[in-house]
């Protein structure tokens, strides 16, 4: 029974901070969608079926702008290309012999944050663990969207601005301890950050979209890591 599995409970607990971090971000999404003329029910439906931040923000803005469907799908896809890598990494960390159906189910929950927590676990991750991990963030994402869509009044600007940093701060909390313990990890992070900075600020390169920038920076940094710092225990 899934709900009694200790792995599930452990996952639930690990998912609490992610769920709390999702609520303000989803709130902003609900607000954006409804103020652009999308019904609150559809805003919640988007969160329940997409469960992603950057992709659904961009997609919804394009829906509101009346952009053709093909372009909406393409833009959203490019933003989501990074999930290919995350899914690949998790596929190799999953307890062996996890069934196809279970794999297909947990795939739905691979967000940046859920991926990060699962990938940084010491042990192999089980189906139950990931189900537990994605449970609260999933409902937090939907709840935040509903609140933003229904309350539909802007939080005080200062509060809203301050909340914007929450998920990034969590990323920092996830990356720094590993970088402290391993020079290889630190080097990989430094390469990734340098490349993504180039894609943000360097002339010409700045034209590359955020979706491509993330995937190129990640690929290059991991390649460098695998070439220069191959791991012993594999």
């Amino acid at each position, binding site marked *: 029974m899934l709900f009694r599995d200790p792995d599930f409970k452990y996952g639930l607990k690990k998912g*609490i*901070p992610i769920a*709390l971090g999702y609520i303000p971000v989803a709130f902003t999404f609900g607000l954006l969608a409804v103020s652009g003329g*999308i019904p609150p029910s*559809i805003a919640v*439906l*988007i969160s329940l*079926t997409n469960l*992603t931040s950057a992709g659904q923000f961009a997609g919804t803005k*394009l*829906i509101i702008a009346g952009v053709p*469907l093909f372009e*909406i*799908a393409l833009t*959203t896809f490019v933003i*989501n290309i990074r*999930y*290919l890598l995350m899914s*690949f990494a998790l*596929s*190799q960390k999953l307890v*062996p012999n996890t069934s196809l159906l279970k794999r*297909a189910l947990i*795939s*739905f929950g691979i967000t*940046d944050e859920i991926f*990060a927590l699962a*990938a940084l676990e010491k042990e192999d991750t089980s189906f139950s663990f990931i189900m537990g991990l994605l449970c609260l963030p999933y409902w937090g994402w939907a709840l935040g969207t509903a609140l933003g869509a229904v309350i539909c009044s802007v939080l005080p600007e*200062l*509060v809203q*601005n*301050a909340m914007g*940093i*929450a998920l*990034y*701060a*969590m*990323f*920092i*909390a*996830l*990356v*720094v301890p590993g*970088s402290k313990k391993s020079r290889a*990890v630190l080097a*990989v*992070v*430094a390469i*990734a950050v340098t490349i993504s900075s180039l894609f*943000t600020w360097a002339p010409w390169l700045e034209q590359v979209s955020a979706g491509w920038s993330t995937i190129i*920076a*990640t690929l290059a*940094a*991991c*390649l460098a890591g*695998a070439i220069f*710092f*191959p*791991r012993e225990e*594999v």
Partner: protein
Amino acid sequence: MYRILTAVLLMALVTYIPRALPMTFFKKRLTSRFIRSFLYYVPYAALGAMTFPAILYSTGDLTSALFGMVVALVLAFYEKGLLIVALSAIAAVFLSQILL
């Protein structure tokens, strides 16, 4: 309305497909040391690339974002939990917006 629902369905598909393809395709463990090393670094590289420099633009002004980032870095260095780091960064941004 029909257009919106179609768009939502398409968005859901193009979000699910990249998440599901590798996960369902690579059912066997790959034994290549190169690939396993590569994948080990993926979370660190991806989070690093997504965080910086995007974090600098996450609060509406550079100064408060820098404050928040430094607070997060220091607390993360001392291995505080996710919530503590996030809440402290939010507080730092908030305070610097009020005070500066």
